[in-house]
């Protein structure tokens, strides 16, 4: 089962990389050179590797956020909004709070978690109290959060010295350090990843969420508090997205909320969760893979002038190819097994028929008439 999934994933990744190669080649880019740039700029130097890890720290958080949501049957597509609210909370606290670093940092991180969870709580409550589909409400709340933060950074919180919409820089007490280009957010993301894995795979709450994700009626019949778990899963999902946003502010280079800070991280997270089949461990792996693609794409643009947006195309192809090959390898293997089994059955049947005919012949010779219309098969 698990091996079959790994094979499907490998097939999907290879197929999609080949498809990407084809696209580049058809457009007249030096395809092989572009790919070698893609990997050398993302893996084969310390700087490259650290850049990839920095990027992965964000993706792993939005990815686990989506995986926890989808895996519990909460269609939380509000990572965009939760990310932005988390980032905004981190920026606001980082600007306002000037306590010592050991106090400020946890406070700012907590603020981003609470903001993200709070934003998802809105959707959870709408579902619980008013039965509004969380999948639409989270999407709509994304736009609300987007315009709300845009308003804040171009109005009340605008840095008067800036040329484009952004907040002021946060206090240095709210900065995570950089160590040779490796951001401190990698450590925070790794910790939160470990905790999420433990909760998801080992705790009673995680077990109930996983069952809820596979079959909510079964969970309810088994006595799990489905509404409560739904809210908690939404909160956890929102908290992780909010933390991702917060780390962008405290762990990044700019230390402030700038326009477009969310980039496509939230939706990348959704895609990562999807290709990982909502497994937390696989989410970590795919987050690394997507980070490689995105970091490498910058290098590719530098070397062979392929627009770095190519990474976005490649990611979507990876998702389609991996997920489709997961299902179709299963169907293909099952179909193959069925054909083999059928062939064996036919051969056996033919042998039996021949044997029966022989028996009948012999019986006729002994003129003992066969039973009327009946067929007494020799028991094998």
């Amino acid at each position, binding site marked *: 089962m698990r091996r079959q999934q790994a094979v499907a994933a490998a097939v999907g990744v290879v197929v999609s990389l080949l498809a990407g190669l084809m696209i580049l080649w058809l457009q007249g880019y030096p395809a092989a050179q572009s790919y070698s740039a893609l990997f050398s700029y993302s893996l084969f130097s310390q700087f490259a590797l650290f850049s990839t890890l920095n990027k992965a720290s964000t993706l792993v958080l939005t990815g686990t956020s989506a995986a926890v949501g989808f895996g519990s049957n909460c269609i939380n597509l509000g990572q965009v909004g939760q990310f932005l609210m988390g980032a905004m909370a981190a920026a606001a606290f980082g600007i306002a709070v000037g306590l010592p670093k050991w106090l400020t940092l946890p406070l700012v991180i907590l603020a981003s978690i609470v903001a993200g969870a709070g934003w998802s709580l809105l959707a959870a409550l709408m579902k619980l109290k008013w039965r*509004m589909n969380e999948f639409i409400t989270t999407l709509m709340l994304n736009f609300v959060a987007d315009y709300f933060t845009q308003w804040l950074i171009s109005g009340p919180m605008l840095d008067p010295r800036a040329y484009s919409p952004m907040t002021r820089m946060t206090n240095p007490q709210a900065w995570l350090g950089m160590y040779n280009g490796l951001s401190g957010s990698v450590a925070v993301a790794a910790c939160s990843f470990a905790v999420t894995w433990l909760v998801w795979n080992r705790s009673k709450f995680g077990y109930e969420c996983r069952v809820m994700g596979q079959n909510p009626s079964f969970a309810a019949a088994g006595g799990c508090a489905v509404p409560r778990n739904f809210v908690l899963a939404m909160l956890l999902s929102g908290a992780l997205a909010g933390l991702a946003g917060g780390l962008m502010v405290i762990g990044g280079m700019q230390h402030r909320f700038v326009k477009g800070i969310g980039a*496509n991280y939230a939706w990348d997270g959704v895609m990562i969760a999807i290709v990982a089949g909502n497994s937390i461990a696989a989410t970590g792996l795919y987050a690394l893979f997507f980070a490689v693609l995105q970091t490498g794409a910058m290098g590719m643009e530098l070397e062979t002038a392929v627009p770095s947006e190519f*990474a976005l*195309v490649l*990611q979507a192809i990876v998702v389609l190819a991996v997920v489709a090959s997961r299902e179709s390898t299963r169907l293909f293997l099952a179909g193959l097994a069925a054909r083999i089994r059928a062939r064996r059955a036919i051969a056996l049947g033919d042998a039996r028929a021949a044997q029966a005919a022989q028996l009948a012949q012999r019986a006729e010779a002994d003129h003992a008439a066969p039973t009327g219309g009946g067929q007494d098969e020799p028991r094998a």
Partner: protein
Amino acid sequence: MSLALELVRSSLLAATPVLLAGIGGAYTYFANVFNIAMEGMMLIGAFTAVAGSYAARSWVVGLAAGIGGGLVAAALFTLFAVALRTDEFVTGTAINMLALGGTTYALRQMFGVRGAFMSGQIQAIPRWNLPLGPVLGGHPFVVYVALALALVADWHIRRTRFGLRLRAAGEDPRVLDAAGVSSQAVRAWSIMISGALCGLAGAYLSLGYVTLFAENMSNGRGWISLAVIILTRGRPLGILVMSLLFGLFDGIGMSLQGTAIPAQLTQMVPYIATLVALRVYSLRSRNEH
């Protein structure tokens, strides 16, 4: 022209893409296909429409390219969700991302720009000066097409052989298969129809509403259409009314611009209005049950 008139006119313009995508989505709704790819189909349609119109200097080609773009996206959706049995939510999300990434990439690759592409060479959809008074006259003709399509779809879904099978495929595909009609084929048709209409909606956005292509210019309209479909349970005439209502809120938001309220906040109006509408709907459906 008075402010109220202007408001109604702009509502109609803003309602059209939501209406078109909504009608398309009604087909997938009745076929019970979870079609969240409408956003992506619209975006691809918007891009291919601009590309076609720019390349051929003809709005006809642009329009055709827009519909074609939507159809290609729908064909991809059909390939994965129907033929390869991939989960619809997964396929839809991936196509949305492919649309976003692909159009952004193509924008740079083909036109060498980031953000938005505009050019005098892009031919816009012509306006029809129908003698319908100051409110209804003088819109891009796709607006009229959309209004007519709502009526046609209503008839098509309720009164025809295809409609009967479509709804049957949605409610219980096994019944249709047992009756000798491939439910998969019916589902595929519904996706293709929604693709064409979403493509048209996209073409209208980039060649009618404005005359340019901007990154992610569909800006959630496909999702609002989805909300509208859920609110109206797929009934095309209901979609017509709800889209006009959405257009009105969009119009209100726009007419508030230039007042003391910041633009970013007025732009929230349609999304908040959608949330409010969902809330009202949940009240109503609770009373029904």
